[in-house]
Every structure is written in C-alpha cells, then in structure tokens.
C-alpha cells in the first residue's frame, strides 16, 4: 500500500471511530429509555378480581344511618373475609388463608371507602372489581414465571388453580391503576401511589423557586450593572462558579449541619429540602441571568440614561424586562435539575416511609426522586414496576419543564 492510501485509510478509520462513538452514546439514551418504559408501563394497570359483594349487615358494625366518621372508623375485616367465603364456597381454614392472600391486604379499606361513598349499599349485593394482591398481579402480568417449582414461586399451586378457574370464568380483568396517582406510599405495592412524593417535590420546588429566583435575579443585576469589576466581584464570581460545581451531597450536609443542626428546622420536611435545592439552584440562575443581562445591548442603557433616567430606572425599566426571558429559561432549567436531585434529600431525611399526603412545606414528606430511590430498595417485584413508573413520571416532568424553557426562549427572547 502506498503511503497516501494508508493515510486515506487512516482518515476513514478515524471518521468511523467518531461516528461509532456518537452512535454508541445515542444508543445508551435509547436503551435506558427502553428499559425504563418496558418495566414501568405495567404499573399503570392493576389486576382486579370481579366478585359479587353482599354487604351483609351481620358483618358490618355500622348501619346506613351512621355518620361518615363512624363508617370510616369501623372495621371491615370480617366483611372482607365473608365476601371471600361467599365467592369461594367451601374453603377450609388453610385454603381460606391462601385465597385471602390473592386479594389485596387493603381489601377492607376498599370496602370501607365504598360504603362511605354509598351508605345505602348495606344489605344489598353489588358487583365489584376487587384489587388483586401484588404477587397475583405480577403472575397475571407475566413478570413472575409460572413454570418453576412451587417453592420458588410467591403464588403456590393451589392459588394458581384458583386463579385459572377465576380466569376461565372471565372474572379476572385489568383496570387503569388510578391509585398510583392518588395514593401516598404504602407497604403493599398494589396500593402504593406517588401523589405524596409529588406533593413533597412540589412544595420543595415552590420554596426553592421563591428563594432562588428573586435572589439570583437581583444578585446578577448587581454583578452586571452596578459594580465595577474589581476584587470583590472577582471573589463573588469565582465563588459562584465553584458553588455550581460543588457535589450535591455537600449541599445536603449543609442542610443537615446548618439548617437542621444550628437553626433547629425540622427533619424530613419540604421546607428544608426546598431551601437546600434553592442553594444549589442559585448559581445556575445567577450564571444564566448574567449571560442574559450581558446580551442586552449598551445602546438601550445609553438611550435611557440620555433621556434622564437614573441608573436604577434604566436597569429596572429597561434592562431587566429585556433580559427576563433568558433568566426565566435558566431558572426553569435549574428547577428541572433541582427536581431530579436526590442526594441532598436523603441527608435531610426526605426518604422516610410517609403514607399521608403532605399538606404543606412543614409536613414530613418524600420527594419524587427519593421515593423512586425508596421503592428501588424494596425487594418486591411490584415495587420494581412502581420504581420505573415513578421514573417515567419524573422524566416526563423534566421533559415538560425543559420544553417550556425552550419555548420561553423562542417566543420571548429578543434578538439584537
């Protein structure tokens, strides 16, 4: 081979390496998305068992005249057992327990909520779709293999035979799992929902925004418009750049050591989470806002000054409004980062098991990413699905926020 051919071959090879590297990187994005979506989509569907439920007054502690409070307080465990006995007649004690395990553990709560909404149902028979237990759900969805020895299965042979007979009668069905969007966390995968974590993240982001946006905007205005470059601005500048690169877990330590340790703020609450995320987002907003302020041409300022405006009037009447789209874009992107940030939430305690949906920034809560982490640590297959579904929800929020950021930039940004 001549030397020119060699060089041209090397050229081709090099270009191929580059293309290969790029394709591989793109491939990683695809495989990640595929994996998440294929494991997570099941969480939006729930297996139910259709049954005739006779609300037998003998097994219900309350009557249709009882107040709502009494209805909510009463126990429906006996009624739930009775319903199962009716639908599977002739069970001995051992088999009864096996069949009971096929239904959700929270069956009695489902009955309670139904009675609370329709108090007149007592003494009548209603056809209901009862949620199946998570293990059964996983068998039906095909996530647990059926053809392995009984000892390796969560669902034993007897339960499988019941399942098949129910299936042949057409009693098994699937419904949209709205519980995933309306419930807080739960020990049982079939009733665990994301709403609590969602609200936790919402309050945290609200605090984060109300801290970081005004301060970030004003700080960048000061640095860009009011001080002459000097030692102090240099220090602040280096400082901001470094803050942007500090690992997020260190902010978690700041929240734990200072906000909780020194200021005595409560543990596990979105207030502290929001402030810590705000500290983290501040540099991002300042950097974006400064870039945007720098983009406003000097002629605007000079024009305002020439007609007699003060420096303050120039900045607040002309420069800030023109730079706002860029600042907002940076803020939304910063908030999107904050939404996905997990490590600081772990340290300030927003990873506990919280069933209630938080009603404010002072209630114990988890965040969306920390809920994902909590579920991922759980061994049950049902939670694996929930984890992926939680990730899908988180990613869709991030996509929405980033799209909004791009739209804000496109629609509002003034080109000079």
């Amino acid at each position, binding site marked *: 081979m001549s030397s020119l051919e060699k060089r041209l071959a090397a050229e081709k090879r090099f270009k191929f390496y580059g293309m290969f590297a*790029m394709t591989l990187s793109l491939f990683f994005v695809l495989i990640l998305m595929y994996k998440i979506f294929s494991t997570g989509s099941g969480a939006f569907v729930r297996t139910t068992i259709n049954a005739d439920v006779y609300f037998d007054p003998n097994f219900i502690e309350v009557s249709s005249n009882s107040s709502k409070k009494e209805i909510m307080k009463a126990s429906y465990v006996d009624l739930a057992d009775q319903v199962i006995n009716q639908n599977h007649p002739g069970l001995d004690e051992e088999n009864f327990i096996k069949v009971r395990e096929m239904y959700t553990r929270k069956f009695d709560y489902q009955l309670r909520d139904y009675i609370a909404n329709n108090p007149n149902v007592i003494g009548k028979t209603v056809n209901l779709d009862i949620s199946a237990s998570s293990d059964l759900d996983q068998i039906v969805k095909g996530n647990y293999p059926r053809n392995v020895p009984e000892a390796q299965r969560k669902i034993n042979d007897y339960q499988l035979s019941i399942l098949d007979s129910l299936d042949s009668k057409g009693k098994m069905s699937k419904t949209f799992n709205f519980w995933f969007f309306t419930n807080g966390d739960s020990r049982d995968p079939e009733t665990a929902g994301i709403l609590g974590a969602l609200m936790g993240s919402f309050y945290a982001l609200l605090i984060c925004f109300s801290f970081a946006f005004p301060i970030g905007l004003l700080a960048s205005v000061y640095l860009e418009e009011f001080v002459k470059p000097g030692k102090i601005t240099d220090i602040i500048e280096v400082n901001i750049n470094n803050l942007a690169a500090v690992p997020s877990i260190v902010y978690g330590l700041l929240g734990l050591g200072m906000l909780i340790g020194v200021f005595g703020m409560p543990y596990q609450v979105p207030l502290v989470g929001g402030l810590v995320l705000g500290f983290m987002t501040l540099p991002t907003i300042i950097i974006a806002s400064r870039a945007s302020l720098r983009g406003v041409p000097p002629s605007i300022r000079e024009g305002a000054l020439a007609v007699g405006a003060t420096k303050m009037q120039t900045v607040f009447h002309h420069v800030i409004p023109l730079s706002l789209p860029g600042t907002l874009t940076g803020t939304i992107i910063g908030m999107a980062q904050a939404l996905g940030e997990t490590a600081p939430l772990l340290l300030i305690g927003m990873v506990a098991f919280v069933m209630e949906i938080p009603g404010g920034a002072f209630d114990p809560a988890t965040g969306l990413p920390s809920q994902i982490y909590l579920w991922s640590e759980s061994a049950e297959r049902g939670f694996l699905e929930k984890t992926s579904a939680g990730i899908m929800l988180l990613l869709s929020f991030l996509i929405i926020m980033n799209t909004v950021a791009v739209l804000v930039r496109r629609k509002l940004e003034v080109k000079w």
Partner: protein
Amino acid sequence: MLYLSLVLVFILSYSFYFYGKKRALSLKFKKNENLSSLPDYYGYYVVLLVFFPAIIIWFFLLIFKSNFQEMFVMSPVLFPDVATWSSGKFGLVMNKISNLSMIVNLSEIDLTVGDKSILKMASESEIIAAKNLANFDKIYGWSNLTLFIILPVLLGFLATKSISGKLNAQPIVEKIISYVIKGSSYIAIFITFGIFFSLVFEAINFFRYVNFIDFFFNTAWNPNRAFVINASEGFDQEALKEAFGFVPLLTGTLLIASVAMLVAVPLGLLTAIYLAEYASSKVRDIAKPIIEILAGIPTVVYGFFAALSLAPFIKDVGEGVGLPVSAESALAAGLAMGVMIIPFVSSLSDDVIKAVPQSLREGSYAIGATKSETIKKVILPAALAGIMGSFLLAISRAIGETMIVVMAASLRANLTFNPLEPATTITTQIVTSLIGDVEFDNPKTLVAFALGLTLFVMTLILNIAAITIVKKYREKYE
C-alpha cells in the same frame, strides 16, 4: 395560615402603593405643595417600608416555628425546672407530649384502652402541654394572620403619614433597592461560608474522637466497631483507631471514577470531534440535544439502571467466561457513571474544539494534511488545555456523584483495584452514615462531615484547576 399571611403581606404592601401615591397627588393638587419626586416614588416608598420589615418577620416566624413551638409547649410555667434538664430528658418529655397530643383532644368513645392508660399516667402539666401542642398550629396560624394584618397596615399608615412635599422619595427608594441587590449577591458568599463552616465544625468534632493521621492513613473501614464501652470510659479507643480508615474509600472512589473516565473520555472526546469536525449541521442539530439528554437524566435513574440491569448483566457475562464477578462490582457503577459523564466531556470539548481558530485548520490543509491528521496533529494539541479542563470537571463530577454509587456500589469497604470486586465510595459512606440518624454525638455520624469536607476540598481543587486551565486557554486565542 402561614402562607395565607404571606399572601396578605403581598396584597397589603401592594395596595399601599396606591395609597402612598394618592397621598402624594393630593399634596400636590389639593395643598399645592411641590413634590420632590415623581408621585410613583412615594408609592414605592410606602411599599418598601411595608414589605421589607413584614417579609423579614414572616421568614423569621416561618423558620423558627419549631423553636416557638418548643418554647410554647415546654414553658417554665408548666415545668418549673425545665432549664436544668439535660437534652436527653428534654427530648424524652417532648416525645411523650407529642404522643399525648394525638389523643388528648379525642372524645371519650374514640379512645382505645391503651390511650386511656397513657392519659392516666400522664401528669397534669404534661396534659396541658399536650393540649397546647395540639392547638399550637391553630394558635400560631391565627396569631400570625392577625400580626400580618396589623403590622403592614400600621407600617403603611405611618409611612404614608411621613410623606410630605419635602421628602425626596426617589433617592431613598433607590438606596433601599441598592442595598437589597447588594445583599442578594453576598448570599452566594454566605452559602459558601455556610458549607465550609458546617463541614469544618462537625469535622473538628469528629477528629476529637479519631486521630487525624489514623483517619487518613488507616486501611480498614468498619464504622460499626465504634461502639461505646460504658458511659464513663466512652468509646473503645483501640477500636476507634481501626474503625475509620479513609484509604479504602479513596481507592474505591478513584476506582469507580477511573472506570467512568475510561468510558466517558474516549466516547465523549470522539463524539465531540465527530460533531465538531465531521458531522453535517443536520446531524449535529439532532444528535447534540439527544446526547445532552444524558446529562439531564436524574442520577437516581442511572443508579436504578446500574443496579437493576447493568450489574446482573455484567455478572452473567463474567460468569459466562469464568470470571468471578460481584453483584455489586465497581464496574457496573463505573459504567453507568461513565455514560452519565459523556455529555460533560463531549459538550465542553466540543466548545473548545470549535474555539480553535479556522486559520490553524486551513494552514494544515494547505500543506496537504488530511482531516484526521489535522485533528490529531493540529487541533487537538491546540485545544489540549481546554480538553484537559473538561476532563478535570468530569472527574470532579464522578467523585462527587452519589446516587449511582449508593444504589449500585457496595456498602462494604474493600481495598482493591480490581473493578470486578465490590468497592465503596466516599459519597456512599456519607449517605449510609447519615440515613435515619441525626444525633451528632458519635463518630459514626460525625464521620460523614469529615468525609464531606474531604470531598469538598477534592472537588474544589479539581474545579479551580479546571477553571484556571480553561480561562488561560481562552485568553490565548481571543
């Protein structure tokens, strides 16, 4: 209620704008006084004088709510000797009262047998304290609301009263705003100080227990060995010596970070070169944002992916070829982290490659070099400093990354350089030592701050080095 009062503060201070302005206008047109500023500024003047005091007090009441709650519940009126209690006893009583507060307001029928016996055992002052605690939110909320009606109105009327034609509102308003702006920019510095001091103080507390040299040079990490022998002797000094050895954490961190860099550097750099030099603008416009998605994906997602798919896959492959691979191998965590870092390397390198002046490329083409030769011999050397800067930033990212390693790496320290074995990292240990435990009185939790400080210093050095290199490089071509 607290949020409602915040809304009140906003609405009231905004409405005083009109009141202040009206007053200024009436001075001008009814009393024929000459105004020193535009009427608007009298409005702003009143708004600022109402808003800032009110908002500062609001934040104060929000942040110190739990302190007020404690003061309200554990008042010396109910517990005369409360000032002399140790923090342990205080916590116990507080805990008891908060349990009591859940049942103290229930009616007779709602109480269980257990509740009744708890109520019977509680002293009278504890019951009163529990009732106070149960009602605290309501009391605090309502008093807050009342305060934030009275305070802004009072301030607003006082400020409006002080308006006269001689009062030059504009400079005052501008002065206040300039202070606020200045203050905001100093907050960034305060945050740095906050980070530094909260790390240093707790780290010093840690080094009271464990010798500085033992910490940095010991090769064993078993924090569970740091147990208390008895109250008088405190910790077992010999065990403490061997409990906290930083070396295996450092090697684990570096091992995982190196695996990550082995993935990210070639892929990121080659991608950057391809996108900057070869790709058509169409390919570039599509591929660049997609690759940057990788940087936007939360790290908890990578961690989940690494633990769920990557680690079992690597284990299977390894066992297929007869290699013993741990289920928590450093390799899995490192690979996932590498994928996460690709966009950092590629977009930063892309920028520096594009910043290389076109004349250098043309000079190289003119003497007959091919494109790849130009890239290898001219562009990369010219962009080397910037590319190095991007590598340093990527390393700092990898060292500080938490979720991937918490989920996919091992919790057990292991002094190894074999990526197939499990390894733990600094960040993993920070998280494990602090989850579910916030008592800052033993080395097991305090070590997190010593680790955090070490991590902070490590990343700080890397960042400053990277920023300095990139800055120097930029000056060269500008």
